């Protein structure tokens, strides 16, 4: 038993810190710190910097260009990038479809797609949910029919995050309508420039358009873009959803948000006294911090257990539930911290470089919108209720 990082792990940490200091653009860093809107280039430039350093695919095997970092090193990388205000890695390529292609894809798919995922030359998005298939994902209806050496795809996907930037989409499509619902689904890689694809933005309650509907109208997809075997897509999707274990709890991000919240609560005043010194507020902050400390150790425990060869089980679900609860609690307390300045909403203030006068303190502008936007994290990627079903099924076996 040792709660300390090894000297090697500590030296890796300083390596990461130095790298961030040298490679992260100041403009991007500033936007992330202040919670401002990010452009596609903010993500891509940072991901390319990580790629050049060899760290963009921390968990991929070396033969495919990955860094093959140990789980603890991956943890440190995530922790430090969040602390250093780097943008989050867009997970759809490197953390989601990449591992699926590595595990189940053809050699041609590996050769064609993996290098462009690594270099961030392809931006991927995820085509899983449909209007009628949310929690019950396996009831999806988008059809793919084999016609010679192409699939013809028809249907609709929804909640597609950042599809407006995407070059490629990985989709679950129904290829055998007669089979039991999980058994007639295939995993298809589709070029977003294919004729017949329409992307329509969905405005969310914070006024942003981060998610989209994607429509497929007789879209021709080369049969070679089918991953693995036909009608086995559900297995690959389950692999994909259970695969992510390092970042799913968002501990690094929560630690960064909590640091930011403490700064804000130090700046806010109640009759001249810093808000952070008010017992009622300070105790709520402390309670969240304690939960987060516990989650960090829990996450590290799970990671090292995985390193010792134990299967991860339901741990991803558990990390997702507790991690999103903590993230939401932080956004909620940040909202309380800014008091009446939660109300005015100057949308332009979310844009870096806007020259207008902020309303209230300069840190207030994105806080309420962030609180509303962050309600999504307990819904997407399998709602927390679905995650609880997964854990309950495993625990009770009933």
């Amino acid at each position: 038993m040792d709660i300390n990082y090894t000297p090697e792990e500590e030296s890796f940490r300083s390596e990461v810190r130095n790298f961030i200091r040298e490679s992260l653009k100041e403009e991007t860093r500033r936007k992330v710190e202040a919670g401002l809107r990010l452009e596609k280039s903010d993500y891509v430039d940072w991901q390319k910097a990580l790629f050049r350093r060899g760290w963009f695919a921390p968990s991929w095997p070396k033969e495919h260009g990955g860094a093959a970092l140990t789980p603890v090193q991956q943890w440190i990388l995530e922790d430090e990038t969040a602390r250093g205000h780097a943008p989050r890695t867009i997970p759809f390529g490197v953390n989601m479809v990449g591992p699926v292609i590595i595990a189940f894809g053809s050699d041609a798919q590996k050769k064609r797609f993996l290098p462009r995922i690594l270099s961030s030359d392809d931006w991927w998005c995820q085509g899983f949910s449909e209007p009628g298939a949310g929690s019950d994902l396996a009831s999806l209806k988008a059809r793919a029919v084999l016609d010679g050496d192409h699939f013809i795809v028809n249907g609709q996907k929804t909640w597609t995050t950042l599809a407006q930037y995407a070059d490629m989409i990985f989709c679950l499509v129904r290829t055998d309508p007669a089979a039991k619902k999980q058994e007639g689904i295939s995993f298809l890689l589709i070029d977003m420039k294919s004729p017949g694809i329409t992307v329509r933005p969905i405005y969310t309650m914070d006024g942003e358009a981060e998610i989209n509907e994607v429509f497929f109208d007789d879209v021709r997809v080369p049969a070679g873009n089918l991953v693995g075997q036909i009608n086995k897509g559900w297995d690959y999707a389950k692999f994909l959803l259970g695969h992510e274990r390092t970042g799913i709890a968002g501990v690094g991000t929560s630690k960064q948000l909590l640091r930011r919240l403490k700064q804000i609560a130090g700046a806010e005043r109640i009759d001249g006294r810093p808000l952070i010194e008010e017992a009622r507020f300070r105790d709520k902050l402390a309670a969240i911090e304690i939960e987060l400390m516990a989650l960090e150790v829990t996450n590290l425990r799970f990671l090292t257990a995985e390193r010792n060869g134990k299967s991860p089980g339901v741990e991803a679900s558990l990390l997702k539930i507790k991690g999103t609860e903590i993230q939401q609690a932080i956004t909620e307390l940040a909202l309380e911290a800014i008091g009446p300045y939660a109300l005015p909403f100057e949308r332009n203030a979310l844009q870096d470089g806007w020259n207008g006068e902020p309303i209230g303190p300069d840190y207030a502008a994105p806080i309420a919108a962030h609180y509303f936007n962050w309600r999504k994290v307990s819904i997407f990627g399998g709602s927390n209720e679905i995650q609880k079903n997964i854990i309950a099924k495993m625990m009770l076996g009933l």
Partner: protein
Amino acid sequence: MDFTLSDEQRLLQDSVRRFIDNEYGFERRRTYAANSEGFSRENWRKLAELGLLGLPFSEAEGGSGGSPVDMMLVMEQFGRGLLLEPYLASVILAGGVLAGAADEARHRTLLTPLIEGRLLLAFAHGEPQSRYTLANVETTARRTAHGFMISGRKAVVLHGDTADKLIVSARTSGGPTDARGISLFVVDKNAAGLTVRGSQTIDGLRSAELTLADVDIGPDACLGALDGAFPTIESTIDAATAAICAEAVGAMGMLMETTLDYLKTRQQFGGPIGRNQALQHRMVDMQIAFEQAKSMALLAAMMASNPDHAARRRAVSAAKVQIDRSGRFIGQQAIQLHGGIAMTDEYKAGHYFKRLTMIGATFGDADHHLGRFSAPDTADAEAA
């Protein structure tokens, strides 16, 4: 003890409900919000015709002498429709301090046109540093040879950008957090030295930041007793707090209906999602929170004009704490039980959730009112 409505109250409730049902469909509301002023002048005229703009004022003031319970009935319906018009800002807040200042000449020049829908007012009290402390006023009004000169800043003034006249609180004596020494002044929107910066609020209403740079006003601009405005300000904010508690109940009711309907109709795994016991129990917890909120909004309304000020403060603060807790739980769970659809701007649930959240940050959040409730001067007074 009697919780039933009188016939007059039922009529009032029906007429406001009809107004909301007819004029406040979710899509129509969107068109009002798109106006540059953020609301509909036509609706304002209709509210005047319905007599609602004069409801809280006495007959001597030109109103119809409605009680806080009448106001509760009205605000609950406004919450159902997410009213955009400046009823809270103009009638309840500005009208409240105006009536409280008991100045008959002013009633003729300001209250009468307000009640008739010809004049919009706003109450400029909060300041960038004041947060929720009502006595925290740093804006000053200094005596000049010909009246007063006001300097300072006012923050998050509800509907301050559409008001024809602003009622501004300013310090005429005492230290920056003394209750004594605060006075009220009427300032025209075109006064030299006044800058009004309007913006949307995140829940679709309007607010303004005011800068007063040596604004010169005449001696008759002072409203009520010099240095003695605090009791009027506090009782008006308490009445307004009771009113937004009722508004919140209306908004919660709509979220409950919408969520319940969704649980019964949204099909997943071969049946309505409401078949899941976990979701059923969540919905029941929401219902319990809703009933608690309704009770406290009612209590606040019945205590809002209680002559025992400590008892009034205690009831209003207790209600605000309960409303904020219930509103947050119901709002968050309504979104969660819907899933992705409720995250969208197109769907109404998010708009109700946003309003409920912002009610939480208006006139003191739950922490502020917990502190006020448990403070020795109010804790001693037993609630009714």
